[in-house]
């Protein structure tokens, strides 16, 4: 089996997924939650058939600008600029007044399920931390791989192994970000602090997966005849580890699917981000990281 024969095609497929995502990121940006930009989100549980505008009118009457409102699984979600506790109390106190006599006697009530405010300072800090942690994680992993692969036989360089793994990892992060940029624009799915956790988990998994393949390449470089080309050895290693890559990814995907289908609503988007990332991570460790490494290593050969 020659997995690397179509290596250019794999990179083109990656590109086909990456490019629309990157364009979406440039045009739409990310639909950021208050975790990043600051603001208030209030969630109401409405009785069935209750006109949500009646609740929104309270905000208008109190001169509170509504940034967005939506119905999500029977909950009314209202997003505004940061509200203080007193203002929210005013809104809360007005809730009974919008009910008519019939509803009142029938015991209809509107509940505020949650009220969340993030100040703009905290929002900026979360954004900064997200970038900083992504940067540090990339650097630390690059250093670790360069160190772990330091005994690689010459003329191959452990830095190239590390860098290829990082490129595959960033590939996965961008795939998830791009898809969520599109979903965020059309389905109003927000990116919150949990999303950063998902991205960081994805890159952790991606590197985890890539390292297993690279480990085998390293082992085979010293075991297989020196006359073999790097590409042949890399392909040989890919085929050997293919079973394991797929089996591991399946087990993770199984658990995530179970969480996605059966788990609580509040973690659905988080699990979706993980699912997309893990699938991408499996693809990239086989079809992105190794082709890049092979192209890079053979390019240098021709140079000489």
């Amino acid at each position, binding site marked *: 089996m020659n997995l690397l024969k179509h290596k250019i095609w794999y990179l083109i497929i990656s590109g086909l997924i990456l490019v629309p995502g990157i364009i979406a990121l440039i045009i739409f940006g990310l639909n950021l939650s208050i975790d990043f930009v600051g603001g208030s989100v209030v969630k109401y549980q409405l009785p069935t058939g209750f006109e949500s505008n009646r609740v929104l009118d309270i905000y208008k009457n109190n001169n509170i600008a509504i940034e967005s409102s939506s119905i999500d699984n029977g909950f009314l979600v209202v997003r505004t600029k940061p509200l203080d*506790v007193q203002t929210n109390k005013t809104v809360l106190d007005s809730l009974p007044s919008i009910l008519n006599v019939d509803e009142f006697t029938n015991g209809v009530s509107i509940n505020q*399920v*949650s*009220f969340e405010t993030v100040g703009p300072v905290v929002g900026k800090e979360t954004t900064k931390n997200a970038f900083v942690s992504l940067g540090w994680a990339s650097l630390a992993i690059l250093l670790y791989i360069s160190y772990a692969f330091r005994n690689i036989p010459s003329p191959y360089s452990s830095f190239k192994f590390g860098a290829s793994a990082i490129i595959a990892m960033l590939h996965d992060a961008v795939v998830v970000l791009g898809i969520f940029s599109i979903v965020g624009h059309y389905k109003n799915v927000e990116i919150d602090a949990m999303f*950063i956790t998902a991205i960081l*988990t994805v890159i952790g998994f991606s590197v*985890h997966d890539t390292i297993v393949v690279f480990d085998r390449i390293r082992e085979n470089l010293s075991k297989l005849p020196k006359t073999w080309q790097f590409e042949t050895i890399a392909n040989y290693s890919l085929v050997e580890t293919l079973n394991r890559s797929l*089996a591991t990814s399946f087990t993770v995907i199984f658990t995530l*699917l179970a969480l996605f289908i059966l788990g*609580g609503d509040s973690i659905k988007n988080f699990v979706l981000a993980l699912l997309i990332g893990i699938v991408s991570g499996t693809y990239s460790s086989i079809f992105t990281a190794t082709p890049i490494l092979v192209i890079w290593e053979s390019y240098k050969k021709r140079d000489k």
Partner: protein
Amino acid sequence: MSFLKTLNFRLGLVSAIFTLAVLVVMPKIDISLDNSFIKIDSSIGGYSVNLFNNKFVLDLTKFKEGLDLKGGIRIVLKADVSGIEGVEKDNALESAKEIISNRINFLGVTEPNISTLKTAEDYRIIVEIPGISDVSEAVNLIGKTAQLKFKSLKKDLPWKEELFFDYFQNPDAWEDTGIIGSDLKGVDVVIDSSGSLQSQGKPQIRLKFTSDGRTKFSELAKDNVNRPIALFLDDSDFPLSTPVISEDLSKGLVDDPVISGNFDLETAKNLSIQLRAGALPVPVTVLEQETLSATLGADSVKKSFFAGIVGLLVVFLFLVYKYRGLGLLAGVSLVFYTIMVLAIFKIIPVVLTLPGIAGFILSIGMATDANILIFERYKEELFWGKDKNTALELGFERAWNSIKDSNISSLITCFILFELGSGSIRGFAVTLAIGIFVSLFSSIFVVRTFIEAFRK
């Protein structure tokens, strides 16, 4: 460690750990049986361990649930320490935390969680109160600046040592002196070096007044020689301290006045923190707040828990399908893994949040990876013509490099998440890291022991 090589020892160790983990994880179950043959009235699980005279307390009655599971409010406050210098900043933050804790205890809630956080930008106090939903009441209660008042005993009341307790209990016996917390610029604990022999070496509390406060206090001291003054915090009915003005002070203030008493270091420190809170009011502003309803969480937990079990089952079946007997052993070790991780969650204790549970379920998937690596390697070695025992030996040995490198890179991510993340992200990192360590133990040590036991 040659004893680790004997199979019986390892089997014993694995079963001992397993039994212990089961006992830790189990909730309290009552066992009562009453018929003509046997009579049992006992309970098992949900233990609470208390060793060395309260030095070591371990409450295993239940898992520690985060706010998103239990419902409640979370408030992040910014403490404005800009007017305070150097080390006093930390003290001010600590005393603000102390005062806020005291106030929240007035709400009569169980297990409020108050912590401080210093970020690059500012000093913060994070308050988490489970079980209440009125965030405005809590914010009002917290937002007050602690106010310290010096009061003197009313002029018409006589002072005798025996009357102390009556006055202590009676807030009406005291009148305002006009000296308040802002007249103090600091409070610290000093060790008495000059006093009489019996007080020497005992901690005292030194009150450092502003120049204005100093004048006011000198006046007060002259009028109240040999009479007590009382230090009240906020609108509490009981004074924090009721020192008696000594005769030396009537001549006017030379050094900073001290409160001496039969303090040990701990009580002196606590009192100084309380006094300082009044002395150094730290204005606080709300940066972030959240109200979470418990129903939202409870529903999600039930669903996610169920999802976790289904996920575990699917992985179990997949392993058995793909690796037959070996897969079955790995599946059993996965159950072992799950119970052990849960036991560690309870012991540490790890605060369970939804992201934490997600991290845990994800780690179930990752835990199998080590076994898959080993088994795939084993199959390969068989393919190369090795006999079963050698292939298995080589499987464990040669897969180790990949297992080590991949898990270290995952741990690096966990570490960075923990260092830079906040709240829920940290919870996720901790559960994932625990998962990785336990998975190494279960998928290598436990599985290997099982396999060898079955080989015999």
